[in-house]
């Protein structure tokens, strides 16, 4: 995961109506401008953290990046949005964490599938990179995550690995 500082980030929230590269467009504005947006400029999407990514009803393929927001760093809704975007909606593009992003949430961001953590002003990028080193660089965990959906017990039992999409009958009971 890349760590960048908000001030030097190539992607910034769009402040005026004129399309330009590197603009993050707020979800509620996109519907009005989607039809007229120039094809040669690929925008980013800025998603509020109280929106269900399954219900936004727009073509995510138009965007180069999706920015998920942390109004406060202790507000964890964007982790769930990231999880849904990656593993249910199969969003393969870039995911950025923006807003009140602090050093010590970097390991969580990386594990739920963010590619870029845009630190809020005053946060030290070096410290954030340092925070990523624990737990074998974030790989030594019990539960699956965006990097590998398998929990530890599946990794330790390679014969039963089922990382690919498998349809399972819900409600089936074992004795």
């Amino acid at each position, binding site marked *: 995961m890349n760590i960048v500082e908000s001030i030097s980030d190539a992607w910034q929230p769009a402040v005026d109506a004129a399309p330009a590269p590197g603009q993050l467009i707020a979800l509620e504005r996109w519907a009005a401008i989607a039809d007229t947006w120039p094809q040669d400029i690929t925008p980013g999407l800025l998603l509020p953290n109280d929106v*269900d990514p399954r219900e936004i009803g727009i073509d995510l393929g138009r965007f180069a990046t999706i920015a998920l927001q942390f109004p406060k*760093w*202790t*507000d*964890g*809704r964007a*982790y*769930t949005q990231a*999880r849904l975007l*990656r*593993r*249910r909606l*199969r969003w393969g593009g870039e995911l950025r964490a923006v807003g009140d992003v*602090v*050093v*010590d949430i970097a*390991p*969580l961001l990386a*594990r*739920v599938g963010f590619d870029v953590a845009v630190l809020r002003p005053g946060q*030290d990028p070096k*410290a954030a990179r*340092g*925070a990523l080193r*624990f*737990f*074998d660089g974030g790989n*030594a*965990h*019990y*539960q*699956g*995550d965006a990097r*590998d*959906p*398998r*929990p*530890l*017990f*599946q990794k330790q*039992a390679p014969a*039963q690995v*089922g*990382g*690919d*999409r*498998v*349809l*399972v009958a*819900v*409600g*089936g*009971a*074992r*004795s």
Partner: protein
Amino acid sequence: MYTYTDFDRRFVRERAAQFRDQLQRHLAGELADDEFRPLRLQNGWYIQRHAPMARISIPYGTLSSTQARALADIADQFDRGSLHFTTRQNAQYNWIPLARAADVMERLAEVDMHGIQTSGNCVRNIASDVLAGIAPDELVDPRPFAEIVRQWSALHPEFAFLPRKFKVSIGGAAEDRVAAGWYDVGLLARRDAAGALGFQVQVGGGMGRTPIIGTVVREFLPWDQLLIYLEAVLRVYNAYGRRDNIWKARIKILVRAEGQRFIDAVEREFAEILEHDLGGDAHLITEDELDRVAAHFAPPPVAADADAAVEQPDDPAYARWLQRNVLAHRDPRLRAVTLSLKRLGQSPGDVTSTQLRAAADLADRHSHGELRVSHEQNLLLPWVPASGLPELWRAARQASLANPNIGLLSDIISCPGGDLCALANARSLPIAAAVSERFTDLDELYDIGELALNISGCMNSCGHHHSGHIGILGVDKDGSEWYQVTVGGSDGSHRGPAAGPGRIIGPSFSASEVPDVVEALVDLYLGQRTPGERFVDWARRARIEDLRAAADAVRRDTARENAA
């Protein structure tokens, strides 16, 4: 007992190292208070009235004698020679300077212990039945499931910053001894018509300002789907739980507000994980994994010459101890023995390092080195040969751990209250002491019989006052301490009727009135009870006017106010 694998061991050591790094940055001024606070909380470190309070995780209440001795050593080296066991089966220290916090976590990691998620808005320590794996009425040992859920929830990246704390309890018996209805998620083992094993899932129970008994969202969840169902519940909560008001942020408020829509959302999410997600089925628990974990909990060997007979008492004190502190066991040659941490001069759940080492010695000699911490803040020895009971009784008595008061009025549950806790509105320990001093006569206590008296110093309800047969809640009015009294609460176990909060019997009382109120309620009960009727059953049927009148009759400090 679960023994750590190399991975588990590396994991807690890595957590200790990560915490040391965070603490060092904080002490160096690189990590501000606001940014450090949630991090230290998720390692169990609160800032309290006098010093930080450290809460140490004791998964499903199980402790080895080695771990107990380490806790005692930490109490001596870092604290003031004692520690406290909580209603959620954890341990707490109250006097350790924050600068030494990382040293403590490293010392704990040496004995496979930690403070991961003992506080903070995340999935907390998994609670279970103190009689897990030994109770005669058990369908299935809940500990392997508790351990699997513990591992799955440990540092789960999606659920580290929920709207509020999240507590899970798992029971495997016919009787609900895990207060399932009072937890954010309460799981009780069930078998379906075909004999398959699963869990009844209750969601949205909780104490606090708004006591609510959980809603059954699934009557039967096949065991292998447990983690995925929990994931669905937590995802719906994380996305939709309220974050605008700390008093309305628990999942119980969401469940109450949304009702069936909450259940539908969870079921839809659950189905979508399995049907649509990349690797969505990867967290189905496999037979191999259950077997691997369950193997850790195989019962220890029983001596070939073990005898089911219990030496009959000629000493009435021993007879009482057998009656109150010794429980039946699945293996007829064994017993479960409670070491009472409720005695005059010591706060409920408190142990000195000396007492804890004595308990560890008793565990080594009589219980294969295993202790359990109970919800009622006592210690339990789960593997005691019946033939060794007289010797154990004498040794426990020597160590002041044999008070034969389990389940009686003096077996009080209490939080540390305002003496130590910065959240508390009022002190709870002096109330516990005053009530204990009022009821010291064992004959009287035995006559009163089964009675759970629970004391909380504030609405956070750490002393579980809502589920007390008598509940006492510290409240703050105009800067002074008052106590609200409830009657007839129940945790859902066979000690009382169905789980539910007690009824409030009028305006709050002063501290000095509380023992009189308890006595007045007990006297009313003794006068009105039918043969064999327990206090709590009487309390549920008693007229509220009678309860209030009895309590009002002993008001002194609060009489004028209420007359006005």
